[in-house]
C-alpha cells in the first residue's frame, strides 16, 4: 500500500485535501474496505473524534489499483491512519504523522510533469508553491479547497482521468483559477477537453524580438536577450489583458464564477523562464483573479440548527387530544361500570358494551397516538441557505441536515452522485461535544453517510457547497416601473417572497415553479411605501402569517426573518442600484435519500438573491 497525501505530500490545515492510495495485491483475490481515518478535535476541549472515509475495494490476484479520498484535516495533533480492513481484521495499516506536512497558506500548484526547476521559487510568497503530477490532482472539486492557483499546460489536461477533469472543471466553475498555455506544440489546444474550457482558435506562431508590453505590465524591465515565440490565438468571449502588436499575450475568460487565464508563451522556456521579473508577473496574474463576493446575508449555523431542533418533525401527542381521550374514556367507563353493577340480564349486555368500549378506545389510542409515534421514531429536516448573486449561473449555499432518532439505529444517507464536502456539526445547545460515529463512504455510484444513532439523540451534517443556480433573471427600471424577470427552475414555487429595493421591503406574489415570470412594480407605489425602520419588522412578520402557524417553514421564518431583514437593510441601504429578493422553497437543494428506512422529513431552502437593477432607457 502506498499513499500520496495532499499536494506532493503537503496539505492545508482546515481544508479538504486529496489523498490517493495505491493498492497492489500479489496474493489471493481480496475484497476489503479501504479506510482513511482523520481525527478531529482537541484533547484540551475533550472533543476528539475520528471521521472515517471509506471505499470498497476489489483486488484480484496480481492487481494494482488506485483509490482516492478527499478528507478534511483540521488538526495535526493526531496521526492520519490509512488502513485496509476485511470485516474486523485489519490487513494493512499505515499511520501518517501530519506535523511536518501541513501549511496554513493556500497552494499555488504547477500541475505538470516537466517544469523549469525554479518556477516554484518565483511564485508569490503568500502562497505555498508545489509541483504536482497530474495523476495526483484531486478527483473531487472540493479537493481543490486549499488551492488558490493552478498552473497547467493544455497538454497536461489530456493526462487527467475523467473524474479529475470533471473535478477541475467544476472547481473552476465554482470560482477556481487556472492558468494555462499551449507551448510550442499547440495540438493539445484542439483537444476536446481544452476546447470545453477554452475555445481556442490558433492563428499560428509568431516570433517577437521583445515583449515591452510584458515589461510594462509588470513594471519591471525585460531585457531582449533572445526572441519570444508566441502563439497567436483567438478566444471567443474572452478578455485580452495584455496585447503586443495586436497579438494577445495574456487572455482571461470567465468560466462559471471562476477564470481561466491563457498565456500565449511557454512559461517553462526562455526567455521568460530566465526573467527576473517572474515573481512580479505571477503576483500580477493572481491579482487579475476576480474577487468573488457572494456572501449575501448569512444566518449563523447554530441559529439555524437551534431552529431545526425546535421544529423537528417528531412531536409528542397533543396534550389536548390526550385530555379529551382520557376524559371521554373515564366518563364512559364510569357509566358502563355503574350499569354493570346492577344485577339482571342487562348486566351481561352492558358487560359486552364495556368490553367493546375498551377495545374501541384501545384501537383509537393505537391509531391516534401510538402508530404516529412509531412512524416518527426516526425523522429528519434540512435547511439550505442559497445565495445567488446577479445573473451568475452558480449559487453558493450552506446545507444542513438534522437527523433525530428515538431508538438505536444505523442509517445510510445518500447525497447523490455529485460529491459534496460533508462534515458533522454539533449543536452548541446539546450536551454532546462530539458527533455520533459516522463513516463517509464514497464510490462511483455516489456518496453516502453510514452512521449510528443512539436512542433519543440527533446528528447534524453540513455541506458548504456551490450549485448550479436554480433561479435566473434580471431587474430593469424605467421612469415608472421596476420590472423583474425571473426563471424559477426549482421543482416548487418560491413562496413568501420579499423584495428590498431603495430602503423598502415589499411583498410580491409567489414565483411559480418551472416558469419564467415577469413581475412589474409601480415605482409610485414603491415611493408610497414607508422607508424601512426596525419597528416595521412586526408588520413584515404579520404579513408572512408566521405567528398563526407552528409548521416547519413558519417557525424557521419566525426565528430567522428578523436577522435576515436587519442584515439586508444594513448591507444594501447604501446601494440603491441593487435589489434583494428573499423567498422560501419547500424543497432541498440536495435531496437526502435514506437507504434502509424512510424517515419522516421536511426540507426547506431560503433563497437570497442579490440583483443589480439595470436602467431601461
Amino acid at each position: 500500500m502506498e499513499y500520496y497525501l495532499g499536494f506532493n505530500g503537503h496539505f492545508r490545515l482546515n481544508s479538504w485535501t486529496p489523498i490517493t492510495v495505491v493498492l497492489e495485491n500479489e496474493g489471493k483475490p481480496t475484497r476489503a474496505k479501504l479506510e482513511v481515518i482523520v481525527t478531529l478535535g482537541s484533547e484540551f476541549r475533550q472533543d476528539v473524534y475520528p471521521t472515517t472515509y471509506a471505499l470498497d475495494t476489489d483486488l484480484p490476484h496480481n492487481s494494482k489499483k488506485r483509490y482516492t479520498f478527499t478528507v478534511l484535516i483540521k488538526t495535526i495533533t493526531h496521526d492520519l491512519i490509512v488502513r485496509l480492513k476485511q470485516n474486523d481484521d485489519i490487513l494493512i495499516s499505515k499511520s501518517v504523522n501530519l506535523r511536518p506536512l501541513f501549511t496554513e497558506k493556500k497552494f499555488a500548484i504547477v500541475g505538470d510533469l516537466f517544469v523549469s526547476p525554479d518556477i516554484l521559487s518565483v511564485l508569490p510568497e503568500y502562497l505555498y508553491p508545489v509541483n504536482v503530477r497530474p495523476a495526483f490532482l484531486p478527483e473531487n472539486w472540493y479537493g481543490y479547497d486549499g488551492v488558490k492557483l493552478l498552473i497547467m499546460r493544455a497538454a497536461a489536461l489530456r493526462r487527467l482521468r475523467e473524474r479529475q477533469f470533471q473535478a477541475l472543471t467544476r472547481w473552476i466553475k465554482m470560482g477556481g483559477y487556472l492558468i494555462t498555455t499551449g507551448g510550442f506544440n499547440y495540438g493539445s489546444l484542439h483537444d476536446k477537453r481544452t476546447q470545453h474550457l477554452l475555445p481556442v482558435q490558433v492563428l499560428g506562431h509568431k516570433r517577437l524580438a521583445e515583449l515591452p508590453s510584458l515589461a510594462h505590465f509588470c513594471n519591471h524591465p525585460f531585457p531582449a536577450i533572445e526572441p519570444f515565440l508566441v502563439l497567436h490565438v483567438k478566444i471567443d468571449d474572452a478578455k485580452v489583458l495584455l496585447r503586443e502588436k495586436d497579438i494577445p499575450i495574456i487572455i482571461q475568460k470567465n468560466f462559471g464564477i471562476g477564470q481561466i487565464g491563457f498565456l500565449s508563451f511557454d512559461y517553462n522556456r526562455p526567455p521568460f523562464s530566465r526573467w527576473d521579473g517572474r515573481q512580479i508577473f505571477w503576483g500580477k496574474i493572481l491579482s487579475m483573479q476576480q474577487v468573488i463576493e457572494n456572501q449575501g446575508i448569512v444566518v449563523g449555523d447554530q441559529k439555524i440548527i437551534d431552529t431545526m431542533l425546535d421544529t423537528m418533525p417528531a412531536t409528542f401527542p397533543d396534550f389536548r387530544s390526550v385530555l379529551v381521550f382520557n376524559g371521554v374514556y373515564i366518563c364512559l367507563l364510569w357509566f358502563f361500570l355503574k350499569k354493570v353493577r346492577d344485577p339482571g340480564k342487562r348486566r351481561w349486555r352492558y358487560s359486552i358494551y364495556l368490553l367493546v368500549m375498551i377495545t374501541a378506545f384501545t384501537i383509537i389510542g393505537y391509531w391516534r397516538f401510538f402508530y404516529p409515534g412509531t412512524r416518527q421514531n426516526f425523522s429528519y429536516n434540512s435547511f439550505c441557505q442559497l445565495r445567488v448573486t446577479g445573473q451568475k449561473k452558480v449559487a453558493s449555499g450552506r446545507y444542513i441536515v438534522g437527523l433525530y432518532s428515538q431508538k438505536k439505529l444505523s442509517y445510510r444517507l445518500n447525497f447523490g452522485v455529485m460529491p459534496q464536502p460533508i462534515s458533522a456539526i454539533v449543536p452548541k445547545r446539546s450536551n454532546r461535544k462530539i458527533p455520533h460515529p459516522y463513516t463517509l463512504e464514497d464510490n462511483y455510484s455516489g456518496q453516502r453517510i453510514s452512521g449510528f444513532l443512539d436512542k433519543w439523540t440527533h446528528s447534524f451534517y453540513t455541506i458548504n457547497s456551490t450549485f448550479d443556480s436554480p433561479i435566473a433573471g434580471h431587474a430593469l427600471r424605467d421612469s415608472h416601473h421596476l420590472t423583474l424577470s425571473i426563471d424559477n427552475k426549482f421543482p416548487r414555487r418560491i413562496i413568501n417572497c420579499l423584495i428590498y429595493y431603495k430602503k423598502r421591503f415589499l411583498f410580491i406574489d409567489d414565483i411559480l415553479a418551472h416558469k419564467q415570470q415577469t413581475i412589474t412594480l409601480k415605482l409610485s407605489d414603491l415611493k408610497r411605501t414607508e422607508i424601512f425602520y426596525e419597528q416595521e419588522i412586526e408588520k413584515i412578520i404579520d404579513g408572512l402569517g408566521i405567528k398563526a402557524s407552528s409548521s416547519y417553514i413558519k417557525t424557521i421564518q419566525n426565528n430567522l426573518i428578523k436577522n435576515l431583514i436587519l442584515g439586508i437593510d444594513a448591507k444594501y441601504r447604501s446601494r440603491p442600484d441593487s435589489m434583494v429578493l428573499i423567498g422560501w422553497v419547500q424543497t432541498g437543494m440536495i435531496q437526502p435519500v435514506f437507504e434502509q428506512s424512510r424517515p419522516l422529513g421536511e426540507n426547506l431552502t431560503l433563497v437570497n438573491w442579490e440583483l443589480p437593477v439595470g436602467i431601461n432607457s
Partner: protein
Amino acid sequence: MKYYYLTDDSEKSLAPFFSKMVLAASFLSVVIIVGLMFVFWPRQPLSSFMIAEKIPYTFFLIFGATLIIYCYVNLCCGCGDMIQRGYHIIKYPTDKSTFEKEIGFYHYGLIAFLLHTLILLLPFVPLLILPAAISAVSLITFLKAVSILFTASLICRLFGFMVYLFWGRMSTLGYFVARAIMILFIFGTIFFAPFINPLRLLYVMNQRLNGIGFAFVSYMVIALVAILCLSITNHILVRHNINKD
C-alpha cells in the same frame, strides 16, 4: 357451580366480578392512573428531550404506578378484602367459607383468578398506550410490559389467596404478611434479586437498554415458576380444606 365466579356476587365469592367494591376499586385505579398521567406528562416538547439526549420516563412511571395499584387490587381480591359485605359478614365477626375454598382450586379458583386478573387489567390498556407512545417504546415492548403487569398481579393474587387459606380473611397477621410480601416482591427484590423485579424490568424497557430480551425471558420463566408453585400450594391447601370439611 362451575361458573359461579362469573355469576355469583354473594358473600360466598372471594372477589365477585360485579361487586360494588371490585368495580369501584377498578374505576378508582383507572382514575388514579389518569391523574398520574397528567402529573407525569412531559412539560417540555419532544425537541427538548432530543437536545438534552434524555429519555422521557413517562412509560416507566405510569406502568410502574399501574403495576403497584393493579397488584394491590389483586392482592386484596386474593386475600378476600373485596368480599361482598352481606348479612353474614356484617352480623358475624367470624369468617364464612367461600366457593374458592370449597371447590377444587384447578377447577374454580385458578380459572377465576386468571380471568379476573385479566379483566381487571383491561380498563388500563387504552391508557397505557399513551405513555408507551411518549417514551417511543415498540409494540412488542408494550405487550411485554403488559404481560409483566399481568404476571406480577397474578402472583400477588395467588399469594393473597394463600395467605387467606392460611390465616383466613380476618387475620391481622395475614393482612400484614400479604402486604409485606407484595412490597418485598415489587420493591425489595431490586436489592437482592433484581432480575425478578418487575419495576426494574419496566425501567429497562423504557431505557431500551441492551439485553431486554434476556431479562424479560428470565423474569417470565421465574414468574411462571412462581405462579406454578403458588398454584400447587393453593391446590394442596384447598384440598386440605375440602377434606377437613
